[in-house]
Each structure stands twice: as structure tokens, then as C-alpha cells.
């Protein structure tokens, strides 16, 4: 990921979150997104009891599971995608069940650059070293998920570990907009992490939000629920594709403004 996020350069990243295995997600959609300007993809692994996800992504998980998604199929799907940048999103809980080393090697095999465990530092802080160790072994980039409620000391320490990026979850759960002054939180986090790449996400859907984030110091944004809401519509004709394309372009424009 360092190639498009070299920290010092002002290049900015538009990342999209999609649930792997959700029938709404297919090569077609991913192509449209890529072509319209999405720089990187984050694929979530569907599960029955997601901890921090909002209703839109939960519904997407359910669709995926009802659609018969399995870990094997998911990794196959990802491997097949011809994408420059992709990472995996799932809970550390889940990976532990499989076995961290095993899980990480699946990730590596799928051609993903890293895996984001949103609960790693919250519920398994003691396993941080182990995570970094395994990342190294699997040639994966460490990525850290934090929230505005993280200790400042820990955030500083994470930055020193030179992750591919830090992912700041702006809201309490995905897709759920709360009246939080995100620009202030981003500014504070930025002040702690120097030029460590900072991507922010959760409930971003509008260009104006993106502009706020960037102005406050984010290097990129992750759009999840907003896209899933769009692509999970019944109607998927040409108007739909056009809308999707325009939407991405508008986000991209905001990002680069």
C-alpha cells in the first residue's frame, strides 16, 4: 500500500468496503467502482454476530450467509478479482477461531495486502505483538483500527509501528451517523500520529463529509454502508450503473478538492 500512500505525498485514497459473498457484490459492480475512481477495496467476511456493524452491513452479512458464503468461496472470489489494492476486514475473534496464522495465510493467498481487525486493540491488546509478527511472516502490512476513544499514548505507539495506515472509525458503528464533530477528532488523531497514513470511515456518504475529513487531516476515506445501500437496490439497470458511477466520481472529486 505504500506505493499509493507514501505519507508525504498528497495523494488521497478512496477505499470502498464491500461484504464478500453478498450477492449484490460482483465483478461487474467492482469494475464500475474501480473505473469510477475507487483506489482500494476492503472486503468484509460475513458472520452471524458482528460486533461493531450497523444495520446495513449486518443485512449485507446476512445476505452473504444466506447466499451460502463460506470462507473458502470468499477467498477464492477475492483471489479472482483483478484489483491493485485490497484488504480484508474481520473480527480478531473470528480469525482466532480459525487460528490467526492460518487465517493470515489465507489472506496472503488471496492477494490481499493486509487485514484489519477492528477489535484487535480493543479486545486483544495483548496480542498486538503477535499480530505484527504474523503480518511480517506473511508479508502483510499491519493496519490498525482505532476510534476516537482510544488512548492517545496507544495511538502514538501505533504510529511508531509504521503501519500501512491507521483506520479511524469515526462513528460508534458502521453506517450509523451520529452528530460527532469528526473534523475535531481527526485533527486530534493527526496531531498524535505525525505523517502516518490515516484513513477514516463509518457513516461517510456525502462529498461534504469527505471534504471535512480531508481538511482535518485524513489521507483517505472508506465508504461502506452508503455503497452497499446503493448496490443492494432491486433495480440494477443502466440508470443504476450511471448513478453509481456519478456517485463515486463525486466522492473522488471531493477527496481531491
Amino acid at each position, binding site marked *: 500500500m505504500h506505493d499509493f500512500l507514501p505519507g508525504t505525498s498528497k495523494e488521497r485514497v478512496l477505499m470502498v468496503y464491500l461484504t464478500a459473498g453478498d450477492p449484490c457484490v460482483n465483478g461487474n459492480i467492482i469494475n464500475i467502482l474501480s473505473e469510477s475512481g475507487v483506489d482500494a477495496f476492503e472486503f468484509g467476511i460475513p458472520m*452471524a*454476530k*458482528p*460486533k*461493531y456493524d*450497523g*444495520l446495513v452491513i*449486518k*443485512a449485507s452479512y*446476512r445476505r452473504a450467509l444466506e447466499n451460502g458464503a463460506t470462507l473458502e468461496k470468499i477467498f477464492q472470489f477475492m483471489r479472482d478479482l483483478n484489483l491493485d489494492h485490497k484488504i480484508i476486514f474481520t473480527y480478531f475473534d473470528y480469525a482466532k477461531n480459525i487460528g490467526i496464522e492460518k487465517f493470515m495465510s489465507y489472506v496472503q493467498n488471496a492477494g490481499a495486502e493486509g487485514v484489519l481487525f477492528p477489535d484487535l*486493540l*480493543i*479486545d486483544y*491488546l495483548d496480542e498486538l505483538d503477535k499480530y505484527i509478527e504474523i503480518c511480517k511472516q506473511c508479508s502483510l502490512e499491519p493496519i490498525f483500527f*482505532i*476510534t*476516537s*476513544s*482510544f*488512548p*492517545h*499514548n*496507544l495511538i502514538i505507539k501505533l504510529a511508531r509501528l509504521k503501519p500501512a495506515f491507521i483506520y479511524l*472509525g469515526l*462513528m*460508534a*458503528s458502521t453506517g*450509523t*451517523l*451520529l*452528530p*460527532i*464533530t469528526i473534523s*475535531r*477528532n481527526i485533527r*486530534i*488523531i493527526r496531531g498524535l500520529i505525525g505523517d502516518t497514513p490515516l484513513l477514516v470511515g463509518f457513516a461517510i456518504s456525502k462529498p461534504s463529509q469527505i471534504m471535512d475529513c480531508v481538511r482535518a487531516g485524513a489521507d483517505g476515506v472508506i465508504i461502506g454502508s452508503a455503497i452497499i445501500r446503493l448496490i443492494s437496490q432491486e433495480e440494477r439497470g443502466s440508470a443504476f450503473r450511471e448513478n453509481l458511477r456519478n456517485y463515486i466520481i463525486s466522492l473522488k472529486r471531493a477527496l481531491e478538492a
Partner: protein
Amino acid sequence: MHDPPNYWYNIVPDLPRPLPPPRDPEDDYIFSRIEILPKLFPSELLDQEFTAERYVQIPAEVLDSYRRIGRPTPLARAVRLERFLDTPAKIYFKREDLSPAGSHKVNTALAQAYYAKKENIQMLTTETSAGQWGSALAYACAMFNIKCLVFMTRSSYLQKPYRKTLMKLYGAEVLPSPSDCTDVGRNLLKERPEHPGSLGIAISEAVETCMKNEGVKYAIGSVMNFVLLHQTVIGLETMKQLEEIGEKPDIMVGCVGGGSNFAGFIFPFVGKRLRDGEFKDTRFIGVESKASPKMTEGKYVYEHGDTAGYLPMLKMYTVGRNYVPPPIHAAGLRYHAVAPTLSLLIREGLIETAAYTQEEVLDAARTFARVEGIIPAPETSHAIKQVIIEAQQCRRRNLQKTIVFCFSGHGLLDLSIFEEHTE
């Protein structure tokens, strides 16, 4: 110290590990408690709930209202108690009882009413049982000229008429819950016209009222980060006051319901310890009721912040929201869980805990009233019990410790509890 501090202290950025975020029940795919938060709370409060800032500025209007309730409140020394216990320890107490509504609860009530007013909210609603929180909110709403609707469990409504009168005097509407103003209430009344109510039902009624009415928001008396944040005005003042008299606290004690007064009292000290090692020998002791022993016997798990289950789940020490504590005078300590930040610090071993029975606590209250002449609230009496134990310990070991506790409220409207036992 002449003026209250002009900021609140947010301990979250200084915690030893990340604060687990609020969550929705994992298996609920239909209804998100997190999503409805903006329907329930004024925006700025939710913003405070999730702020990464260490110091949050207190708005000038809130500062004014703090001055009006007598902030900075005095830090008094319990010389007579020291003498009575014949202890070499020095005992100080922070007097949160002197505000018009009689407890620390008003510190957050004023902030919540202010933000509501600022956001053009017409009415705040809440639940109350014993009435301390209800009166604090009624007072605050009177101060910021917004309407206040309090659902009071019918049993308290009938048994504690004074609290109800006080709230009404402040202009609040007080309804016995279940009431016929909500669906929840009407259904329950249909089954049982004299339903005694419960805190859970009262919360449900308040939440239903918010959900159905634009311009009505919910106010909450403990547990949420923003509540604890507002309460840090207690500890910030205490720190300054101790500095002024050249004292360092060896032991700091507070009672714990949801944890707001105790947290507000100690967090500025705990924060300094976490940041730069100051107060590293200070012991922080939270005292709960044996009737709801979440800290001493509860589990550290995700649980709803409210007994009704309308609020998101938070990671807390809890006895479970369905646990029904025996009726005790210290209604404010019947709460089923401890605020997330406080829970985390307990888990990390930074805070000690203790639990006492009603009888033990009433004895301590009686001693304090007799010796110091100030009537503690039943909740506050739990802290006093612990203070007495520590001071006695100091006597036995001849230790000249400085003990400081939070005198969270007065018991003038709870005098009946002594009556039953005084005769």
C-alpha cells in the same frame, strides 16, 4: 479557589487501554440502539460522548449556572469526625450537597439542559425513582427555561411526595409511571390500574415520548461518558482546593450508582496518575451497595446502559439489567452497572471496590449526622462507611493519611429512613 474550572476533563484519551465502544446486540438485525441515539440526546452531548479531546470547554452559560449553584463547592474538613474516631488521619469531604437540588446530579443536569436549549429542544424527559435525578433535572430545566417531564415510578410517586412536590415547584410535569401518556403505560395500566411501576417502565415511557415527539429529548443521570465528563468539575475543583491547602490525597472515596459522582471526583486525579505518575500511591475506592454488587460480584461484559434496554450496550461491570435489587433507601445505588470508563479502570486494577449492607451504611450515616451535623443522602452514606473504616485503620496503624471523599448529596428529603430506625 473563587471560580469553577472552565473545562471538563475527559479521561478517555488517558485510559490504559481503548474504551470498548458501545454496541448493538449482535443478533438484532432490525433495530439499532446506536442509530436512535440522535433521537434521544442533544447532538453536542453525543459529540462529547465520542470526543477525542482531553479537555472540553465548559460553555459560559453553564459556567454561570455552576456559579449559581454555589460552585466551586466547599471542600470541608471533618475535624469532628476525626476526633470522634480518634484517628490521626485527616478527613476532607467535597460538598456536593449544597446545590439547590441537593446532589451532584445537577452538574450534568445543567449541562444537558443547556445543550438541549441551545439546540432548540422544547422538552427534556427522564425517569426517576427516589427523585434525586428528577429534581436535579427539573431544577436545570427551570434554569434554562425548557420543559421537563419526569416519569416517576408510581410507588415512589405515592411514597415520596416531597420529591414530587419539589420537581413540580421547579415547573416540571411529574407523571406516575406507568402513565396513560404512552403506549407502554396505557397497556400496563389496562392490565393493572394501580401498577406500582419500575425504573425500566419509566425509562420506556420517557424513550417512547422522545421517539414520538419532535423536540423532546431524553436526559440521563449517569453511566454515559458525557455525564461523567460533566461531573469532573467535582474532581477538578477538589484537586485545586487540595493544592491550595497543601494536601495530597492518600485515599479517595465515593459511592457508586452508575459511577458518575465517584468518577467525576477521582478522574482528574487518575488521569494525572496515568499521564505523569502523580498520585500513584493514592488509593481510589468506589463503594456500592450489597443490594446491587456489580463491582464486587458482577461481570465485566456488554450490557445495556438502561434497565429497559433502549440504550446501546456498553462494556461494564454489571449484575445484569434484569437483576432486581432488593428495595433499599439508596435508590441511586440500585443501578445495575458501572459506567464503562470506571469499569475499565476497575478491571485494570486502578480502582478498589467495596460493598456494604444497608444496616452498616445507616450506622455510618447516623454517626456522620451526629458528629458533623450534616445529613448525608443514603447513597453518600456508603462512602462515609468506607471512610470510617479507613480512618479506623489509620488509628490502629497510627498512619496520618489524608482521606478525601465525595459528599454526593444530602438526605433531607430522605429523613424517613432514619425515622424507621431511630425510634
